[in-house]
């Protein structure tokens, strides 16, 4: 997360609210001889292009004891190659009026530049160069390790809610590496070395383990030519299979409590282990997207009940992300209003969920959600950056482009019975982790 991953998740989450008529983004896809998959989304509204390379490797692929190395390497990818000085990559992009960044998830690591269409050649040349020719020395690695430690303090240690989320996540996954924080545990981050970074890079960074996505004012033929020129010469190499230990069947509800004297606003949340589009009972993934829409949002069940009608909470919502190589989670949350106990909010939430499981969702609710999600596919085409991010995240979790483009139809086919059945399968106490963010009285 050179500049954090959180935004990306939010965008993809919204797309879960995103897709319409027959097709969504109409991408073109082809594969180079060295195994690099290339996806092109033409969009001629502005003379700019977004150029992204996504590697099929992330924090959940890290060896034990090396948490944070995927993200650390993401930072180190800006430290130069045989022909570029440290920092020269970003300097060159800026000098050409472009912006660049990078991001790391449990399942992938990505690099992005947005530039004028006539600078595509330039960024492709540099990105292809660092796919194989990274040069690292302790002189650049050690200060950058301090940077990621500062990043951890800024985004986790200084933020009580983020510390709780990290602990809840660790409690959710008993055996799968999704339980480790993407940024890493501090004690392990401190021990990461140049050799660890190089080993990681040599193992996983290869054209045959990557997807190139170019979106914007460019044609598929132009991209084909440029990709062949710049990425074509990068040699393929064997990439190991991912080691992803599976979760055992969950047996017990877990409760995680974090007390901090800086907390002024207590909050309650619960996550349930859930299937994704790639793992578990995958048929439930689309119904769960519809369910998240029915429960969440300002006109959703939870806000209406807890915030508007019963006046117990200042906010309430639900979220589900179907993009994951392995299992995912379905979350619900609420923030009690002053004077209301967290127990009262929890009780109200459980009553809502109990009623949902008992009575099921109504046909009319599902129809409204499907309409909203359908409209979202049109809206998703508005911002130029949405398509490459959504496509990248989907491909990284193993979804095909055809399946992604079929999203509007899949959502249109979801029935109320399927939504109810998915809710009954997932909202099982034993699959859950409940988090309490509480105020500790000052000592």
């Amino acid at each position, binding site marked *: 997360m050179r*500049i954090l991953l959180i935004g990306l998740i939010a965008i993809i989450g919204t797309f879960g609210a995103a897709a319409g008529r027959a097709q969504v983004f109409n991408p073109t896809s082809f594969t180079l001889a060295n195994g690099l998959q290339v996806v092109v989304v033409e969009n*001629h*509204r*502005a*003379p*700019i292009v977004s150029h992204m390379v996504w590697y099929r490797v992330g924090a959940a692929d890290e060896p034990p004891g090396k948490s944070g190395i995927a993200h650390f390497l993401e930072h180190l990818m*800006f430290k130069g190659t045989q022909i570029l000085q*440290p*920092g020269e990559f*970003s*300097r060159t992009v*800026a*000098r050409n*009026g*472009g*912006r*660049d960044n990078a991001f790391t998830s449990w399942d992938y690591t990505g690099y992005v530049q*947005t*530039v*004028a269409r*006539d600078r595509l050649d330039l960024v492709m040349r540099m990105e292809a160069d660092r796919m194989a020719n990274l040069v690292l020395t302790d002189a650049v690695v050690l*200060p*950058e*390790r*301090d*940077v*990621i*430690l*500062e*990043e951890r*303090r*800024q985004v986790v*240690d*200084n933020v009580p809610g983020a510390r709780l989320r990290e602990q809840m996540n660790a409690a959710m996954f008993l055996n799968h590496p999704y339980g480790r924080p993407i940024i890493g545990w501090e004690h392990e981050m401190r021990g990461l070395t140049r050799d660890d970074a190089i080993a990681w890079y040599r193992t996983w960074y290869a054209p045959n383990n990557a997807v190139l996505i170019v979106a914007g004012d460019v044609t598929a033929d132009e991209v084909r030519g440029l990709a062949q020129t710049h990425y074509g010469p990068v040699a393929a190499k064997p990439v190991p299979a991912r080691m992803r230990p599976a979760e055992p069947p969950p047996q017990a509800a877990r409760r995680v409590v974090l007390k901090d004297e*800086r*907390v*002024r*606003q207590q909050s309650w949340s619960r996550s349930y282990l859930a299937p994704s589009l790639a793992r578990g009972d995958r048929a439930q993934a689309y119904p769960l997207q519809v369910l998240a829409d029915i429960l969440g*949002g*300002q*006109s959703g069940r939870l806000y*209406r009940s807890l*915030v*508007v009608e019963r*006046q117990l909470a*200042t*906010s309430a919502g639900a979220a589900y992300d179907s993009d994951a190589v392995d299992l995912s989670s379905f979350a619900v949350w609420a923030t009690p*209003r*002053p004077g209301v106990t967290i127990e009262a909010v929890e009780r109200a939430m459980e009553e809502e969920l109990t009623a949902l499981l008992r009575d099921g969702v109504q046909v009319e609710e599902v129809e*409204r959600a499907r*309409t*909203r999600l359908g*409209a*979202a596919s*049109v*809206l998703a*085409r*508005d*911002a*130029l950056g949405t398509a490459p991010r959504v496509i990248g995240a989907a491909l990284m979790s193993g979804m095909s482009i055809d399946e992604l483009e079929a999203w509007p139809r899949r959502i249109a086919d979801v029935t109320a019975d399927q939504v109810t059945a998915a809710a009954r399968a997932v909202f099982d106490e034993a699959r859950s982790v409940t988090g309490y963010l509480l105020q500790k009285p000052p000592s």
Partner: protein
Amino acid sequence: MMRRLAAFLVLLGVWCASAGPALAIDIERVVSPGGIEAWLVRDPTLPLLTMEMRFRGGAASEPADRVGIAQLATDMLREGAGDLDSSAFARALDDRSISLGFGASSDSMSVGLRVLNEHREFGIGLLVAALTRPRFDPQTVERVRTRLLAGYAREAEEPRAQVRRAFQAAAFPNHPYGRSLEAAIAGTRAATIDEMRALLTARMARDNLIVGVVGDITAQELGPLLDRALGALPAKSRPVEVAEIRAEISAERMIVIKRRLPQSVQIFGAPGLKRDDPDWFAAQLVNYVLGGGGFSSRLMTEVREKRGLTYGVSTGLSALDFGAVLVGSSSTENSRAALSLDVIRGEWRRMADEGPTADELEGAKAFLTGSFPLGLDSSASVARLLVAIQYDHLGFDYLSRRDQLIRSVTLDDARRVARRLYGGRGFLTVIVGEPEGLESSGG
């Protein structure tokens, strides 16, 4: 169709101006039969209408004992209007995927609407109802008031918000820009429904209204639509009476707020300059070199890349209508916070003494001209630009002049402005945390 790409001809124009021959920019000025003006960029590529509206005069005009009332009043506009109570209003928006939002900042109030073509008239109807027949149901007012108060409570312990508030209070003493969180809490508690209604009537009128529109609509269609949407607003607003203030930062001053945090969060700065200052672009260029330039700025290079002292450090010009500051922020673990600030202070002085190099200035010009279109990547961002150009009185032809304004800044200009901005005696730092070796001083 000839104008298939009309919407983003704005971008094209700007871009080509920086990369070669300038093109005409396709903004249309539309005046409704009733006399309401809007700037339109037509974009038939998506079946969508995006309207951004802004009214001059915001929270800074609030009475001292009603701080926060503007936020509360504008939040209420989304909570029910005409025959629709809060829940029915939210559902009317959600079911048609209409986004309608209201906000208040220091100097203005804003309204944003995005609606699919098929629901355009319905969306306009909801906008009209919200602006002219808001309900202010007492129970709903209390719910929204509670939500805002909970937000202020959270802000009280959020380190970034804490230092920002303290900085503003020190820079703008006895001025609305420097009002405290306590004042906002008290004012939000005290505001009555009658006062909120009176405020909206006084502040949202046709004579202080600015409109930007992007979408699948012709100028002929937009004229009457403007009258339907906004014609019922009062003709005249109450004059905005806010005192001009020069930021009172005239000496070295440090404010340390002791909190138990692993990482100190700091904000620092000096008096700035306003948007209508003739040195505006020279200041933007110099700021880009020091701390505005993403990964390539002097501060990022010295503080982050070389020394690993922070995850991020940046500076920017914060220009309000009645006062301005030049302000930067970063965060560093407590034991190294003083060192980090030393490096920042040293670079600040060096910029005052030496200014940017010729090469740095060229790089800044290349970025500020070239990257401009990259931010205009959605209908809403283009609509907001149309509003901003009008709000700041930059002129109908501003986009065709912008590149030249930036290019014409000379190295002498840049050095002079660097001395002006960074060479004063005033430097204010506010830190929250447990920074080792730092205590409040000066002031």
